[in-house]
């Protein structure tokens, strides 16, 4: 399992997608290879996939620290903690100065599970931003 097998699978899906979403994948070069997965119609919020020794990490950026209304920061944290369990398959996290949601899968996962993960992550992302926009500037 590496990002290229995932990319090939997703790019070949076309109308055969199990999730009703269409994916466009672009590998990003670097010390760790990352796959940028654009979902058609939602290109502004891509999902980034990287594969480590034992897990497949799918990450979507929500917003930066600079977008947070600092007076509501604590309330935002509480909401994130409260939503963490109910939100299916994804969890909140922070990387550097960016808030993200992410999902981690075993490298033994099959492609349909990865497809499902990406779809749910993208749906969660839109919903989270919609619901939590009150904490942003």
């Amino acid at each position, binding site marked *: 399992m590496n990002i290229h097998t995932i990319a090939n699978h997703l790019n070949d899906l076309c109308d055969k997608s199990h999730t009703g979403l269409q994916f466009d994948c672009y590998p990003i070069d670097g*010390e*760790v290879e*990352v796959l*940028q997965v654009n979902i058609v119609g939602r290109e*502004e919020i891509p999902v980034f996939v990287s594969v*480590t020794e034992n897990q497949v990490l799918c990450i979507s950026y929500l917003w930066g620290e600079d*977008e947070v209304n600092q007076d509501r920061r604590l309330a935002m944290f509480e909401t994130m903690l409260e939503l963490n369990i109910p939100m299916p398959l994804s969890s909140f996290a922070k*990387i550097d100065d960016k808030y993200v949601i992410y999902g981690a899968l075993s490298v033994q996962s099959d492609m349909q599970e990865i497809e499902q993960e990406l779809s749910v992550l993208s749906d969660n992302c839109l919903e989270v931003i919609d619901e939590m*926009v009150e904490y942003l500037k």
Partner: protein
Amino acid sequence: MGILNKILTAFRGGATEVGQGIVDANSTRIFEQEIRDAENHLTKAKRELTDVMAKEMQASREVDRLKRSISEHEGYATQALEKENEALAMEVAEKISQLDQELAEQEAANANFTAHATRLKDLVRKTERQLTDYQRQLSMVKTTESVQKATASITDSFAGSSSKLLNAKDSLERIKARQQQFDDRLVAAEQLADENSDKSLHDKLAEAGIGEQKSNANAVLDRLKARK
């Protein structure tokens, strides 16, 4: 819990810039070496354990054999005494004494092997536990580093291209607008399809002279005449 603390310290210390590891590469290598060492210890301990357990079984079989032999010879000695053959009974008694000594030695050896096996089993359990913990910690370090490097790749990629990560509100609004436009188009297309089917039905009715008729010159003339 050392590793979580190291990761957090590194974050707080701002060691999140590109190229700066959470735990420097050298420490990671040392850590990996420690894991390999622990794995080697484990293999060695397991091999030794098998050996000791085999010896333990052997000693235990020998203890059984000696016990059987002693009771057998005790029988012989009794029989010799019954036949008042004191000399033979004495000879057997000497043999029994020799067997007793051997039994004591074997039992001591057996106890020793059992204790050794118990110690080795403890060691194996401890090493396995430690190994799992080392692997968990290494996986945490590696995942953290991998995410950092991946983030660096993503940031570089976006910095180098015309596209950029928009802020959350704008992104959502654009996506919603696009979705709305798509929905609107869908609705418009449906309406158009409805109108077209209405129109064709209307035409057919008109042709058949049913429903509202088109006004024509004759009809106008008739209407004017009727006003007189």
